[in-house]
């Protein structure tokens, strides 16, 4: 068998949406949100670890969390979770050979749900 040249794996190209179709956007979005969520999980665990420092630490933490910048960050996490989760459902369904021909409509539909949910949470968080 002739050999493929071993090319340098060009990570950046994964995230290049130029000239790509909706399916690639979904793929890129899923990857970014997935990685984002994983990163968040680590941060989250570190934070939780610090809570073991007693009541002062807890109060300080709550104050920090009420900070609008932090809230915005939290909203990002919520957004990522919705986008990733709902898109993940789409991938799961189509991967089992269901609605494969309707993946674009599914994506648009689920992302609309995600956007509505994100807006709902944004309003709730910032009006409390």
């Amino acid at each position, binding site marked *: *068998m*002739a050999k*493929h*040249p*071993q*090319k340098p*794996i*060009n990570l950046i*190209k*994964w995230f290049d949406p*130029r*000239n*790509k*179709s*909706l*399916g*690639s956007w*979904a*793929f890129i979005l899923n990857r970014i949100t997935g990685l984002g969520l994983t990163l968040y999980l680590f941060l989250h665990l570190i934070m939780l670890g610090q809570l073991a420092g007693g009541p002062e630490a807890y109060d300080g933490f709550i104050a920090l969390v009420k900070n609008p910048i932090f809230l915005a960050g939290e909203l990002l996490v919520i957004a990522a979770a919705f986008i990733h989760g709902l898109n993940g459902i789409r*991938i799961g369904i*189509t*991967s*089992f*050979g*269901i609605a*494969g*021909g309707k*993946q*674009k409509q599914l994506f648009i539909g689920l992302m609309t749900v995600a956007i509505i949910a994100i807006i709902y949470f944004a309003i709730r968080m910032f009006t409390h």
Partner: protein
Amino acid sequence: MTQTWSITYEIFRKKGSQAAHYDRFEMKVDPDEYVLDGIERIWAFHDRSLVFSHACHHSTCGACGMVVNGVEKLTCITPIRSVTKDGGVIRVEPMRNFPVISDLSVDMTVFYQRMESVGHQPVVSIAHEDSKGKFDPDDDLLRLSDCIECGLCISACPIALTTPAYLGPAVLAGAQQSGDLNLCVLELVDSENGAWRCHSAYECTEVCPSHVDPAWRIMDLRKKLVSRRIKKFFGVK
């Protein structure tokens, strides 16, 4: 009736071990001509050293796949009008994810070998007309199958970009279409670099010029693989 446009072809060039670069050719074209016609004229009248692949000029052989302005196209049926405007540029590059022989030609040997090893049928029953599964065994008419083995889907696939070991859309679609999942084929497709490597970017179906819908076929193949595994688990033959 015919219009004339002035456009620039920007062509990827690579010879032997020399560094790759782009050559520009200013051309007068009829916008209803096909992208491949312009490339052939560049060879005939401007630069006899240009290497490119083509054969049938009507989308039945799959030899003329290239990346045109960033998108995979079968250049023999892509009208110039559809990829640029008067005064515009057409950037032509060889397909991605294949070894480049020279300029615009790539080596498809491994791809062909994979198509062979999954038993893709080059000739199918006419009743396959509804290519998504219906089958009428009474009919004895045959036709050449949909997949023209152009490789565009592999060029467009973000996973094929990650690893050359991934079989790729056309090959998995070929396994799905052949219907005969014998042990050799199963070993290939029911594996890390087979059907389970796909991440649902659907680029293959987007660029396929020949009604194959490889993404749908990969998903359908997964369904078949899962049901096989379930049956095997419960000991059903």
